[in-house]
């Protein structure tokens, strides 16, 4: 009798994965296009130096790269842990 509830659970799990994926994709888009739009519309700010040699633009650019990597890491940890555990419980 567990068949329908099992496929429901799988459906819910699949939906949760798409939600996490969509949220993280959105975060990446915001970080990247936020950076690009600042470059396009606020050049003086990006050129301001926080300490000699380090402009706001360089700091933010490096941060976008690090953020992109960190978001990938967050997804990997979530999916390889929580998601895969739930999936393997459903599978057997």
């Amino acid at each position, binding site marked *: 009798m567990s068949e329908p509830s099992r496929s429901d659970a*799988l*459906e819910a*799990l*699949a939906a949760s*994965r*798409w939600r*996490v*994926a*969509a949220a*993280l*994709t959105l975060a*990446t*888009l915001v*970080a*990247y*296009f936020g*950076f*690009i*739009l600042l*470059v*396009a*519309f606020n*050049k*003086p700010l*990006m*050129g301001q*130096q926080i*300490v*000699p*040699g*380090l*402009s706001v*633009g*360089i700091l933010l*650019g*490096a941060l*976008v*790269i*690090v953020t*992109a*990597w960190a*978001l*990938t*890491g967050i*997804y*990997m940890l979530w*999916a*390889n842990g929580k998601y*895969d555990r739930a*999936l393997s419980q*459903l*599978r057997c």
Partner: protein
Amino acid sequence: MNPTSTTGSQFGQPNATAIFFFLLFVGVTLAITYWAARKTKTTSEFFAAGGGVSALQNGFALAGDYMSAASFLGIAGLVALSGFDGLIYSVGWLVGWPVVTFLIAEPLRNLGKYTFADVVAYRLKQTPVRLSAALGTLTVVSFYLIAQMVGAGNLIHLLFGLSYEVAVVIVGVVMILYVLFGGMIATTWVQIVKAVLLLAGASALAGVVLFRFGFSPLALFNEAAQQYGAQVLAPGTLVSNPLETVSLGLALMFGTAGLPHILMRFYTVPDAKAARSSVFYATGLIGYFYLVTFILGFGAAVLVGRQAITGVDKGGNMAAPMLAEVVGGTGFLGFISAVAFATILAVVAGLTLSGAAALSHDLWSSVVRKGQAPEHEQLKVARLASLFLGVLAVVLGMAFKGQNVAFMVGLAFAIAASANFPALLLSMAWRNFTTNGAVASMLTGSFSAVLLIFLSPTVQIDLLKNTSALFPLKNPGIITMPLAFFVGVAVSLLFPEKEASERFSEVKHRMHVGAGKPAAVPVPPVPSVSPGPAPHPTATKA
């Protein structure tokens, strides 16, 4: 263009160290190919290394596929000549990777077999979908190959003093050997060796540069600001048109998720978990590499000087090798030159293999032979296709000699983002997607991207020397990508396909659960006429 500006420079001269390191690289990789050739007996081994590549190995191989000589030399040159603007490129080239991880990597691994067309065609009609997917793949691969081959010819001419033609032939022959005999197993290991060499070479170079500035990048940037003015640390002219930048950004972000040779890498790992992890490793390696390249660019501006750099190559492409010579002498120049050469070899090998997969798996096995081709025939066609593409790459490299082909990389990304990505995403995420919708979306994406680039200032003004261009943007992504999505959705709604939506549940199940077979059991190859691609025989360890 023999340099006389830098005194005692070895540029354009046959350099013993460069030739030694290059021969060493070719020797080692051909030994790998010999070893791999004996393990390459099935199509799964030829196209997907038998699914036996580990996540870390695939991470390095993905990074190797992506870090082309263009990004190494090109970004370093751009930073050297215009400072901060180079970082905008680095950021843009990296941000596609999270999208690949979140949306593409694991469904692709779970649904497909060798090419991304497997996924799009999973619940749709095989023939039309595979025909249009192969068209998109081959267009992307051809443009990317031309850019690489022409780049290789020029680069090797400058670095080694070989003639352009000889360089193109060497690249072509060695690359054909890798792909023809070693298939994906050899190509993967060539990418790994190359990625390690490139990362090590760039890190060593950056280390030597930073040593002179007390290991402080900020001191280096500050020195650049002293020499060239504070504006080197601020956005310059690259982003003069925000719309243009957003368009380029879209193409780079979603183009990465549509590049056939990148997508193909996800079939080499055993499961979805390894697919995710491998993109995480790749993203870290590529991000690190771009940050290092940024330091190299500033290092070259400060230690070599802009005038000397443009004296050798107007585009600034020689900034990193010249920096190597200034800080480490001829030996270091030789090493970096050999690494750049090796980089091109590896990238063209990956491209050729993905083109061969489209020709033999999508066109021959699925369309011509309707899945009835026996294993040995598929393998033979795959090898013939590799040989054909390798020869074609050499011919195209010769034909485009002296042309400015930088825009072709942008074009490849624009087509990948417009033709491949929308159809791929819709087929995985939308129940009502249909065969007609997929075909219309892929064809619209390919043709609109090619047409708009033809009408763009890059081709009309820079190449054809016209005074104006019909289409104002250099990159069409902002128009063509939404257009491909829109056409895909509209055509699907206009012509519903009952069978395709009925089979969506199966797609969803398989996409999340995987093939549903224990990984340890080897599965015999199933003829791919059945809509569901066969699971990998994961038992074979590479």
